[in-house]
């Protein structure tokens, strides 16, 4: 007999006069809140029919945003920072997910057991992988190293995608890797050691994902932005409620290929609509300090909390 694994994901039939909205989001477990919110009908209540486009990071999402092909994007804050520095006309209208100010965080630097690294300062002079150079990962790691008394300039960063990092770590091609869930759990289970949780160590509760739109859309269709923001706010609150965790995990299973046990155990971030502007400004300051950015973005223009 044949199966059809897509059958469950079919979006509920759009009724009558819903406004079509295209949102770009990464295909990662964090997006569960959005998927869950859509399925729970929160967006439909606002008259929105949301279609999620799985863009791979800001490099693709922001051009599509500017081009008007998509209306909103969920992405890491460095994307809009860079875009703002180039006057591309994007605005952050709200938060989406943040790291945890205490307890286990959602990303961490993990060192292989044989490297002998236990403290951030020891990362100096070693090969450390991040998924994307010149973004929140290496900036906060450098800050953490410096805080621990190491020389941040000596850390040798290489770019390895999260999914490839465990293998490279095992092969000894890198000494430590900055990874997210589910890889932290996977590596821990293998006996590798968490060296530092760089977000928590430098800017506790730093935003990992924000909601972005184009300035043009915000000016031309303020009503849509308002409606979407309201729905997002509700969605994120909904997702933050422990009572809804089962729905969230179900959304992961529906949309991602994670094995069941992983989907059930993967650590979810703190969802919330309210932006922590101070944290973002601090991140930009650190980025300037380590010459990842050469200027500060214009935060008054960039951040327009709805």
């Amino acid at each position, binding site marked *: 007999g044949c199966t059809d694994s897509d059958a469950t994901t079919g979006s509920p039939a759009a009724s009558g006069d819903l406004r079509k909205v295209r949102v770009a989001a990464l295909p990662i477990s964090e997006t569960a809140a959005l998927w869950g919110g859509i399925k729970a009908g929160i967006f439909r209540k606002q008259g929105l029919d949301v279609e999620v486009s799985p863009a791979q990071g*800001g490099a693709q999402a922001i051009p599509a945003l*500017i081009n008007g092909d998509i209306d909103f994007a969920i992405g890491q804050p460095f994307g809009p920072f*860079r*875009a703002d520095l*180039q006057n591309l006309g994007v605005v952050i209208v709200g938060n989406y997910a943040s790291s945890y100010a205490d307890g286990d965080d959602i990303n961490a630097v993990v060192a292989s057991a044989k490297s002998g690294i236990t403290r951030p300062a020891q990362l100096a002079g070693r090969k450390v992988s991040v998924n994307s*150079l*010149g973004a929140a990962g290496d900036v906060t790691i450098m800050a953490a190293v410096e805080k621990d008394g190491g020389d941040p300039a000596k850390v040798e960063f290489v*770019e390895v*995608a999260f999914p490839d990092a465990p293998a490279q770590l095992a092969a000894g091609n890198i000494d430590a890797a900055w990874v997210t869930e589910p890889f932290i759990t996977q590596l821990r289970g293998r006996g590798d050691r968490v060296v530092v949780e760089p977000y928590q160590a430098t800017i506790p509760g730093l935003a990992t994902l924000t909601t972005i739109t184009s300035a043009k859309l915000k000016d031309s269709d303020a009503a849509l932005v308002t409606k979407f923001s309201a729905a997002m706010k509700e969605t994120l609150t909904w997702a933050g409620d422990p009572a809804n965790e089962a729905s969230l995990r179900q959304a992961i299973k529906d949309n991602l290929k994670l094995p069941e046990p992983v989907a059930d155990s993967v650590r979810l971030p703190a969802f919330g609509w309210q932006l922590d502007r101070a944290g973002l400004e601090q991140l930009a300051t650190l980025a300037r300090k380590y010459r990842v950015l050469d200027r500060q973005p214009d935060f008054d223009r960039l951040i327009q909390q709805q």
Partner: protein
Amino acid sequence: MTARRPALRIAANLLFALGLPAVAVVLWGVWSARSDNRFLAGPLAVLDAFRRTWIGPAFVDDVLPSLLRLALGIAGSIVLGVAAGIAIGSLRRLRETLGPLLEFFRAIPPPVLIPVAMLLLGITGTMKVVVIMSGAIWPILLNTIDGVRATDSVMLETADSYRIPRWERLRFVVLPAAAPRIMTGVRQALSVALILMVISEMFASSSGLGYRIAYFQRNYLIAEMWSGILLLGLIGILLAVLFGLVERRVLRWYQGMKEITRA
């Protein structure tokens, strides 16, 4: 047929070489000036970015190592591609054994091969050279196989009837007969190699031309990104010129025979 005076001929060549690009640049300038799209940098901005980005230490740090890997990749592809192509083209049994396997590998996207290559070879220059070869070898291999198989039957019978030994038959009959096809393949391989050099550096890298382009792209440094693509194009032209010189030597008989030079 062409102008007799060398000065005139050089001028004509220059005009041909630069005519269309000049027109394209003008059109580009007009277009980018009239469009308010931030993703289309104008020619002047790109030129300025080019000067800022690539002239100076970046050339030594990023471009030269990339070029070295590129050269190694191309050389490796040619040697391996031609050798394997001749073997596969002339040995039917081998062709039938390896054929499906090669087709299988040919269809696998390099981005998914890079993690495997990394696992087996580490994050090293060798890995990148291997990735370059994994793409650039195909045009050479396929063209060599087809070229060898298309060798005129009377020419082969002549070689057989004079009992020309294997090695000489290869060197003086099969290789030259396949040379026009091989050169077609090499020409294609050059640009494929350049593309794969970029792709190999877009993953798991922290320096190199490809890394730079990916970096600019991610950071919306639009003019810089286009300047990187401009540099790639220029490298492409340089490779084409070098290739043209080699080709003219290698295929002199062919071009004479086909009156290509006189056409």
